[in-house]
């Protein structure tokens, strides 16, 4: 269980990206975090694993207070939470296998990682995960020789390799085509269910969030303005999160289009602007 209380982040230039966020995420809960660009979504999940240092507030993962941990404690805590990135953030020159095994760095000593001597259990597990994410046989390929969708699958395998309690996912599908995006979200959802993982997924694609998650959080200018199941996220509440009034009467010429396609079109327009 992840409990965030009064989380405030003030960047060195004085800008408050988060203005006191309270939220609790249960074990195994799949949560989408939506909100306009600059709302503080990335800041929020980066505060959890302290790639960004929180200014005020507390964050507890399974009753362990994260904000006050020292370096060694933080390393240990980071093993329990894995992160997935929009731009995959693989080590491009290394092989797929090395990238997947890098998920174990928190648990393996320096020399073992220097000479890539990972325990046999880890290697077995990595092969199994590669199979699970649909990359069987690609373990010796260099990471930069994969397509975006494949790289993101490596990113997911690396995260699961950590055997974490929670996934912190920052826009996993933003660089992917719509179909690949669906596949990747579906994969994430399945794997979370299978491993009983909780996840916070930052995402701009509202229809995807609705389809694949249990709960949606809406963040706007550093404040939580929506928290509820996907059904409650209707077109009426979207303006509260994204601003503007003309949400449902968007001038879509094509009336026959399905609702979720229409709103994803609106999102594209928003992002471009």
């Amino acid at each position, binding site marked *: 269980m992840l409990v965030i209380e009064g989380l405030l982040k003030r960047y060195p230039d004085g800008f408050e990206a988060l203005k006191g966020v309270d939220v609790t995420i249960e074990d195994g809960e799949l949560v989408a975090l939506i909100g306009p660009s600059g709302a503080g979504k990335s800041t929020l999940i980066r505060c959890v*694993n302290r*790639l960004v240092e929180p200014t005020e507030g507390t964050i507890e993962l399974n009753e362990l207070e994260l904000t006050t941990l020292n370096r060694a404690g933080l*390393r*240990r*805590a*980071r*093993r329990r*939470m*894995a*992160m997935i*990135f929009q*731009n995959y*953030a*693989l*080590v*491009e*020159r*290394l092989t797929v296998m090395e990238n997947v095994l*890098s*998920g*174990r*760095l*928190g*648990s393996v000593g*320096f020399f073992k*990682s*220097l000479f890539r001597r990972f325990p046999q259990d880890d290697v077995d597990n990595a092969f199994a995960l590669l199979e699970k994410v649909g990359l069987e046989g690609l373990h010796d390929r260099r990471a930069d020789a994969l397509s975006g969708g494949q790289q993101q699958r490596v*990113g997911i395998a*690396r995260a699961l390799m*950590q055997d974490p309690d929670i996934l*912190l996912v920052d826009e996993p599908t933003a660089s992917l085509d719509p179909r690949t995006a669906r596949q990747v979200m579906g994969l994430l959802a399945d794997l979370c269910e299978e491993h009983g993982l909780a996840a916070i997924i930052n995402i701009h694609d509202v229809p995807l969030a609705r389809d694949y998650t249990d709960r949606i959080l809406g963040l706007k200018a550093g404040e939580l303005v929506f928290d509820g199941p996907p059904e409650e996220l209707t077109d009426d509440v979207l303006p509260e999160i994204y601003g503007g009034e003309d949400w449902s009467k968007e001038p879509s010429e094509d009336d026959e289009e399905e609702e979720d396609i229409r709103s994803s079109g609106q999102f594209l327009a928003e992002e471009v602007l």
Partner: protein
Amino acid sequence: MSGTSSETRTSPRRWRRPPMIADARKRWALYIAIVAYLLWATASIEIDIPRLIEGLDRAREFFAAALTPDFVSRWSDIWTGFIESLTMTAVATSVGVALSIPIGLGAASNLAIRPVYLICRTILAVTRAFHEIILAILFVAMFGFGPFAGVVTLIVSTIGFLGKLIAEDIEAINWDTVEAIEATGASWWQKVIYAVTPQVIPRFIGLSLYRLDINFRESAIIGIVGAGGIGATLTTAFQRYEFESVSAILILIIGTVYAFEYVSGAIRRRVL
């Protein structure tokens, strides 16, 4: 051809690039000053026509000798000097490369804590402040004539060169990757070997090989001030006016640099 404006224009509008110094008087004053200085400077060198002719004579002699290199009469001196240079190069490059790694890491502002950064940057600034010749003179004065002073010179300048370039490479790496590795709970050293090293290693190898042939060429130069190696042999041959031997030594140096170039090219193609 569109109408009205071109018809009303009477003459073509002239354009010139604006001069760097707008004030014409200042501009001409500067030109005159420069020319006057050059005239005075040339005059002050006291060009001595007989000496110029003598020099041309010697140049002819030298170039004639260059076409008939003599490897034989001074072979044992040349060979000893050559091996000494190669040894100096090998030792200095390996030690220099090894030392430049920690210093380069410490001098990368995105990895090192502030005090370490400042110390390493200071070391780099000091090692880069002096030309190899100056360093060689200094170390010859400290350690006496011979290859040891040469090796120390080359180590110091290798650290300055590689350390700075590597630090700058590290500062330009893709940071997302480093954060991703950090997020797995990796330690600082694991971050370095897993996320930083793969990103900088090809260029690091390339630069080290490049430094290898710089060091060989430098070993020929610093020999002139007494720091051992083939340079010492070269100076001796010059002083004895044995231009055929000089030519042989130069050919050997050029050949070696070419060989290094070839080998390093082959290695670089493999690692990239």
